[in-house]
């Protein structure tokens, strides 16, 4: 026992834990209340989607990419479609570029509001969680109106989009935007002028600009550390090249950049307002015309089958750069496909953020990069001393059994 009591002692948190919203295994080396070192193991939810994609054709893969992430359905599908469109040399109609931009920005609004709620909850400020999640519903309703779904939108396809935005929908979108613009001041006030939030978030979970660059950080996490990156500004795709978007950095609001949790709140909340402006501009400037380059799927598939070449599709997802590499070699399925989600680039930044912090700040620091690790592929059950792994088959069978029992 004497060995075990000496510091540092090890605190494991994960793979699933009430304090974490995402499944990841942390191992903390603690010295009293202070974190001396930290290690993490992702992959608790790896589903082998790239492997599946290399056995399917691009028309099928867009449905797979819609389901990589429950939040970034548009980003992944858009990034993959843009890569395939470059290989097959399909020109996307301008109207489709604008519709893609509008839905991508709605995705950002709902994602950032969802995150803000989670952040409030991790700080123990649950009334603010309820407020942000209630107002988030309006953007979900608009997304449902535009695409037919709250998640897994199925809107973007190779060559364009599936659904047009008709004039009757403009009013619904406009109502939502003006509601958010009216609310934003209140949200900024509640989050940024609250004494408790400032005490919990200022100078907590620091990530220096140098570390952010060296650890390849992307999106709001990088911007909050003062790195001027935003694909919508630097590498404009879809309609962003027409719109003059500029990256939001914390010093624009607070006059300084500290790279702490507070700055990450600043960046995300301001981006909600920015997205409202982008959507409004897209709606007013949207050109008329077709919404897809090739409406016949069989023809589209024939084009994809003949295609040869490699391309990169990049999209600024709510959490940062979403990167797809596709290689086609004249076959139905891609010869290679690599999906780099935004959180892939951000996880390494946890280590410098968490080192030297207090144990009570783990949840908010972990949540501050807005991690997203997707759904489960297997479950390990530990009962007494024995450990058994339930496969997908077993789980499927168990769930069928349970449904049957309920039906009786």
């Amino acid at each position, binding site marked *: 026992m004497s060995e075990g009591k000496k510091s540092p002692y090890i605190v494991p948190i994960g793979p699933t834990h009430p304090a974490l919203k995402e499944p990841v295994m942390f191992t903390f080396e603690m010295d009293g209340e202070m974190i001396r070192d930290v290690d993490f193991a992702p992959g608790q939810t790896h589903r082998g989607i790239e492997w599946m994609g290399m056995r399917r054709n691009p028309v099928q893969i867009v449905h797979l990419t819609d389901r990589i992430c429950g939040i970034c359905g548009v980003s992944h599908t858009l990034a993959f479609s843009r890569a395939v469109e470059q290989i097959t040399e399909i020109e996307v109609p301008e109207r489709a570029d604008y519709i893609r931009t509008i839905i991508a920005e709605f995705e950002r609004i709902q994602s950032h509001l969802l995150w803000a709620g989670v952040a409030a909850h991790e700080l123990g400020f649950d009334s603010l969680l309820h407020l942000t999640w209630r107002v988030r519903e309006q953007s979900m309703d608009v997304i449902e109106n535009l695409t037919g779904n709250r998640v897994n939108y199925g809107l973007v396809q190779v060559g364009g989009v599936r659904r047009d935005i008709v004039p009757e929908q403009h009013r619904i979108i406009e109502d939502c935007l003006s509601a958010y613009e009216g609310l934003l001041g209140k949200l900024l006030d509640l989050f940024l002028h609250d004494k408790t939030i400032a005490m919990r978030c200022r100078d907590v979970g620091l990530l220096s600009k140098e570390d952010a660059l060296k650890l390849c950080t992307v999106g709001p996490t990088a911007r909050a550390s003062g790195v001027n990156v935003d694909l919508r500004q630097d590498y404009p795709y879809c309609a962003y090249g027409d719109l*003059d978007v500029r990256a939001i950095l914390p010093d624009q609001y607070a006059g300084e950049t500290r790279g702490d949790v507070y700055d990450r709140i600043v960046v995300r909340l301001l981006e909600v307002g920015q997205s409202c402006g982008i959507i409004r501009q897209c709606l007013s400037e949207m050109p008329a015309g077709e919404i897809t380059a090739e409406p016949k799927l*069989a023809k589209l598939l024939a084009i994809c089958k003949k295609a040869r070449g490699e391309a990169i599709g990049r999209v600024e997802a709510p959490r940062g750069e979403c990167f797809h590499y596709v290689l086609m070699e004249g076959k139905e399925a891609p010869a290679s496909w690599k999906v780099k989600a935004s959180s892939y680039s951000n996880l390494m930044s946890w280590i410098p953020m968490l080192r030297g912090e207090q144990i009570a700040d783990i949840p908010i620091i972990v949540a501050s990069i807005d991690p997203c690790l997707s759904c489960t592929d297997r479950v390990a059950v530990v009962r007494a001393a024995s450990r058994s792994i339930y496969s*997908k088959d077993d789980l499927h069978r168990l769930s069928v059994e349970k449904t049957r029992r309920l039906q009786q």
Partner: protein
Amino acid sequence: MTEKVLTPEQVAQVFREKFGGAVTDIRITERREGAKKNPNFNIWIDIDRSILNPAVATLIEIHFPHFAVISGVDAGDAVRLIYHFTVFYGNPGSECTVSFSVNLPKDDLAVPTISSLIPGAVFSEREKQEFLGVRVTDIPDGRRLFLPEDFPEGVYPWRKDETGIPEGMIKDLWRSRRPTDRPAPPAGEKELCELPAEDAPPKEGSS
């Protein structure tokens, strides 16, 4: 870090002049979208693995790059790794991607680590070790990343040869039928669809 933005052709010229024969090919592709059709440039540089670290160091001299990810392809007798970077971010409309491609013959799948130059790259290098069976020499952390601890040794999911995922490891969820010791469901059960004879992906929309 210099803030000077070079054109894609100038970037290509830097690598051509500095590395000569070790750079086997440079391609520049562009994509134009939206109403204004502003271009985005992608630079693809095929290099010998011996100059991987010097090439990354040269890129750092041009502009400290954002490292995105390493892609990998099983190209039959070799594994091709593609290191994706971006430079000139922060300058509106000027960012371009730079992708270094290295070929590793299958009898010698070793590649040097670039983590001494870009520490964040170790994450992607760990992934390539377990998914493609390449060996990253001097990697500071060589543990597995995504695959479960009980995943068999010597199986690499993205390989297309005998070291890829064997048939026995593939689970066809749609095959798991409902339990037999239960009362009959209200409607008759649907017939299982037949698997296509060859193991090619199922056809869609080709009829």
